[in-house]
C-alpha cells in the first residue's frame, strides 16, 4: 500500500487558520475508472470487485461498502474510499483484463476539503456560479464546476456537509478562499 499517511498539500500551511466547519481531510484512495457503461462485461466486473453499480445518471454518486463512485463523464468515474488504491487498481485491472478500459490511481491528484454546518451551501454559492441551493443540490449529488475559478468536484455527502475535491497544487488558494467565505457565518450575530 502506498504510504500516504505522511502526504501533505500546500493547504496544510494555513490549516491552523481554518474556521469551525472547514477542514482538509487526510489523504484517501482515489481511482479514476473509464469504460463503456453499456457493456455488461464492464459493469459486472466493476461490481464484482467493488460491489458498486456505477451511476449512469450525470452528477450522481453511488455508495458501496468500501468505495463510492462519483460520475465524472459518460464513461468516467472517480472511485473514492479509505481502502488501498494500489490493491483496487490491481484487482480492477485483473477483472477487466482484455477490455477497452482505463484504471488509474489518482490519489495524489486531488485533496479533499470538508465543509459543514448550516451555512456551508452559502459559502459554496458565493464561491461558484453553480447553484448549490438545497432545492437543486442534494445529498448523493456531485458536480464538476469552478470554485473560485479553480476546477473542483463538489460532492454533497450529507445534510449540510460537502466534500470539495481540488487539485493539490491549488489547495492553498481554494482552501484559503473557502475558509474566508465561511468565516463570516461563524461570527457572533
Amino acid at each position, binding site marked *: 500500500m502506498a504510504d500516504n499517511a505522511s502526504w501533505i498539500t500546500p493547504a496544510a500551511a494555513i490549516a491552523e487558520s481554518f474556521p469551525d466547519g472547514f477542514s482538509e481531510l487526510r489523504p484517501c484512495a482515489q481511482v479514476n475508472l473509464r469504460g463503456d457503461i453499456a457493456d455488461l462485461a464492464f459493469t459486472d466486473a466493476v461490481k464484482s470487485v467493488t460491489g458498486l453499480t456505477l451511476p449512469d445518471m450525470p452528477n450522481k454518486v453511488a455508495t458501496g461498502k468500501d468505495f463510492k463512485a462519483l460520475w465524472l463523464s*459518460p464513461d*468516467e468515474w472517480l472511485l473514492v474510499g479509505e481502502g488501498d488504491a494500489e490493491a483496487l487498481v490491481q484487482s480492477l485491472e485483473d477483472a477487466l483484463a482484455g477490455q477497452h478500459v482505463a484504471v488509474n490511481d489518482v490519489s495524489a491528484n486531488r485533496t479533499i476539503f470538508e465543509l459543514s454546518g448550516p451555512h456551508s451551501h452559502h459559502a459554496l454559492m458565493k464561491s461558484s456560479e*453553480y447553484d448549490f441551493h438545497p432545492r437543486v443540490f442534494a445529498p448523493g449529488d456531485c458536480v464538476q464546476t469552478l470554485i473560485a475559478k479553480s476546477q473542483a468536484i463538489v460532492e454533497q455527502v450529507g445534510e449540510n456537509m460537502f466534500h470539495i475535491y481540488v487539485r493539490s497544487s491549488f489547495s492553498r488558494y481554494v482552501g484559503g478562499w473557502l475558509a474566508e467565505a465561511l468565516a463570516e457565518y461563524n461570527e457572533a450575530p
Partner: protein
Amino acid sequence: MLNIDCPWCGKRHETEFRYGGEAHIARPEDPAALDDTEWAEFLFMRKNTKGYFAERWLHNNGCRRWFNVIRNTVTHEIVGSYKMGETPPKLPKSAGGAK
C-alpha cells in the same frame, strides 16, 4: 453571459465551457489527395454567419465532452444543444434578429 445546456450535465454557466468554432466540418476522406488550396479551405475557412449558427462547445470544467450548440450570433439566443452525431434541432423560421 450565456447559459449553455450541456447534453449530459444540464444548464451551466458559460465560464465552464470552451468554444470550438463551427460545427459539422468533415475531415476530408483522403487528405493526401488534396492540394494546398483545398487543405487550407478545410483548415481555415469558416462561415461568418449572422443569425443561427451550429457551433462546437467543450464542457472543459465539467464532463469534458464536446457537443454542438445552435446559437444566434446576433442575439445570443441558444436554440438547443445536441451530442456529436445527433441530428441538429430544427431552426426557428425567422433569422432571429439578423436584420
